């Protein structure tokens, strides 16, 4: 049976999701700046790993957004 959350619990979950999403976006920003700096300096080793990491961060963000929609609809 699906757990039903109180309004307060939902609010806490939503704020938690927002915090995690913000942290991931900041992490992606840092990775982008570092990758650009490395690329301009001729260092190619980190480009592929950071691209994959950024994609994973985006996937997590998208998953959290879907969960947020689900929470707000129940």
């Amino acid at each position, binding site marked *: 049976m699906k757990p039903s959350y109180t309004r307060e619990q939902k609010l806490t979950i939503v704020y938690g999701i927002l915090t995690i999403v913000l942290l991931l*976006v900041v992490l*992606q920003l840092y*990775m*982008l700046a570092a990758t650009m700096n490395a690329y*301009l300096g001729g260092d*190619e080793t980190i480009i592929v790993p*950071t691209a994959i990491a*950024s994609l994973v961060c985006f996937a997590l963000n998208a998953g*959290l957004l879907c969960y947020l929609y689900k929470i707000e609809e129940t």
Partner: protein
Amino acid sequence: MLTNKQNQINVKSESPCQQQQRWRKDFPIDWPQDRFIARRDFTKFMVLISLAFVFGQFWILIQNFLRQRRGKLPLRAIAKINEIPVGGAKTFSYTQEYDSCVLVRLDANTFVAYSQECTHLSCSVVPKVERGCFQCPCHEGYFDIANGRPLSGPPRRPLPRIKLKLQQDTIYAQGVELRMI
């Protein structure tokens, strides 16, 4: 003439909409709702920004792939040895027409060449051979003339070095060396 008590009664019986001035009634925008940013909308916006960063990362990946595909850079004649006096400099384009570079003769046998774009915000650096440095006039960045490394100011990366080749009294550019430190 309304008394205070009557005023209070009238105010209480009117709805918030009815209390508004006439022009506000003509343009009934629910301002609190308009200003309220739903959590869902904010998170959606953040996820869109996240997607934009992913595009940025993959754009760098594609640019790197294209750069690798270009292969060996062409040889380009810059100047004859006797064209440049000791302590003199000459600007040239390499690899594209808009990629400005500078060749400097440090002494009788030493030539150095670097990209003229400052690694901070791409202003053109000016060779100051007597002081042994390149100066970026935009934000007072300085680079060592011998190795292109930043000496002071906002630049963090050294100037890209142009690889030189001497062939029959002519100096050729034959590649670009990008450096992190």
